């Protein structure tokens, strides 16, 4: 892939090639999040495309409000966006202040990518909500959200924990727990109109 991008190449395929390379990189990172092992891929070649895609998807799906109602979906999109990005920035600042040797954007990258399980949970909840509402519906959604929440935390801990001093891992992981808890709460309390 690298040598194909560097060759002069055909004018017709020169433009899509970097796009495919970037998409493949993003997809590879998604796989790393879904099957978290201790690896440096997310940290070494960080990028913010994946977090952006996930955040936009989550914000779009968390919107509701029909065209004819007075509450438009605009502020909800912005609020989700702001919460995700400012939450990630706060956690990054916290882990840097605690003495972690991770760069700002690496940490943003990891936290953004680890929203993937919760986005999957949002999709599943959306599908489950097509059935009739009731306590069973709620229990299913609760179970799915809890499992994905735990998955997100495990994934982000696998990547972030090594950058902290060994005795302070708990201090760095706790705000991550709160961050994903708030996002999970937003997903769980979503009911369509």
């Amino acid at each position: 892939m690298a040598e194909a991008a560097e060759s002069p190449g055909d004018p017709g395929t020169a433009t899509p090639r970097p796009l495919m390379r970037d998409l493949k990189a993003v997809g590879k990172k998604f796989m790393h999040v879904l099957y978290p092992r201790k690896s440096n891929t997310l940290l070494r070649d960080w990028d913010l495309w994946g977090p952006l895609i996930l955040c936009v998807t989550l914000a779009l799906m968390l919107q509701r409000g029909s065209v004819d109602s007075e509450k438009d979906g605009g502020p909800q999109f912005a609020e989700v966006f702001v919460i995700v990005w400012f939450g990630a920035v706060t956690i990054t600042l916290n882990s840097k202040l605690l003495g972690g040797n991770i760069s700002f954007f690496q940490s943003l990258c990891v936290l953004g990518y680890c929203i993937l399980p919760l986005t999957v949970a949002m999709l599943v909840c959306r599908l489950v909500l097509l059935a009739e509402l009731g306590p069973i519906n709620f229990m299913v959604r609760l179970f799915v959200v809890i499992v994905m929440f735990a998955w997100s935390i495990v994934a982000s801990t696998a990547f972030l924990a090594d950058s902290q001093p060994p005795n302070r891992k708990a201090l760095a992981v706790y705000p991550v727990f709160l961050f994903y808890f708030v996002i999970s709460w937003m997903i769980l309390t979503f009911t369509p109109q």
Partner: protein
Amino acid sequence: MATPAAPAGGARNGAGSEWGGFEENIQGGGSAVIDMENMDDTSGSSFEDMGELHQRLREEEVDVDAAAAEEEDGEFLGMKGFKGQLSRQVADQMWQAGKRQASRAFSLYANIDILRPYFDVEPAQVRSRLLESMIPIKMVNFPQKIAGELYGPLMLVFTLVAILLHGMKTSDTIIREGTLMGTAIGTCFGYWLGVSSFIYFLAYLCNAQITMLQMLALLGYGLFGHCIVLFITYNIHLHALFYLFWLLVGGLSTLRMVAVLVSRTVGPTQRLLLCGTLATLHMLFLLYLHFAYHKVVEGILDTLEGPNIPPMQRVPRDIPAALPAARLPAIVLNATAKAVVVTLQSH
């Protein structure tokens, strides 16, 4: 003509650098003294001094190098180049001065390292401070020590935000999470920062020995009691239980803060004013969070979709219908627990 100037300039430069080196040593020693002095106070100003000193030392090195480079340029061009060089030097100096001021301001205030010492904690320390925040100490003749850290208070404020969000009724009403999120964050941070500033101002009036950082830390750890009470009573809506916890847990954490402030204030009137204000605000905030905050939230919900829940009857609503055979006495569960109970009952 340029050449006799060069050795003189060189000698001057050399002597300047020697003297500059000597000054650096003195400043280095001075900074160590300042550092030790302010360490006990944990006021934090020592770190700003250190940052500024460091910046000044670096700039002096840069200036010495720049001056040496310009000296070499000047002797190369001779007399004619010297006049053009003068105007260039003036422009350069003005630019350097402006750049120096801007970079000093930036490095001073945008430097994250200023906050680093306030986050220098171990998990065991945080745990012990959380537990100690519920234990009032009766030593009032000697100023009690306050840990000047910001990690614990910040995490407690965020936890309080999360608990407030969790306590919202989520069963069958449409909720705009964004507005509730903003209200929760605004309430918690507003309380922590606003009441800390206000009590710090009162402490300044009453001549109490407490810094802003210590006040922030004290009030932040005092929110631990609030977190516990709200977490329990948002899940079990028993009013008597809430009042019991309000008095017991809220009272303990308030007493702890009051004891610390009394130990740092002289004079009965000042003590009464300071501690009375803090106790009132702290206990009333817990009451507000349990009762009136929900009214604010339901006001937001009502304006969005029309009043469908009479606010005062929110608590005992449809409980007899949901639990006909359980015979639980006035315990009211929130939506999550209700769903669980109904599911279990249907089996």
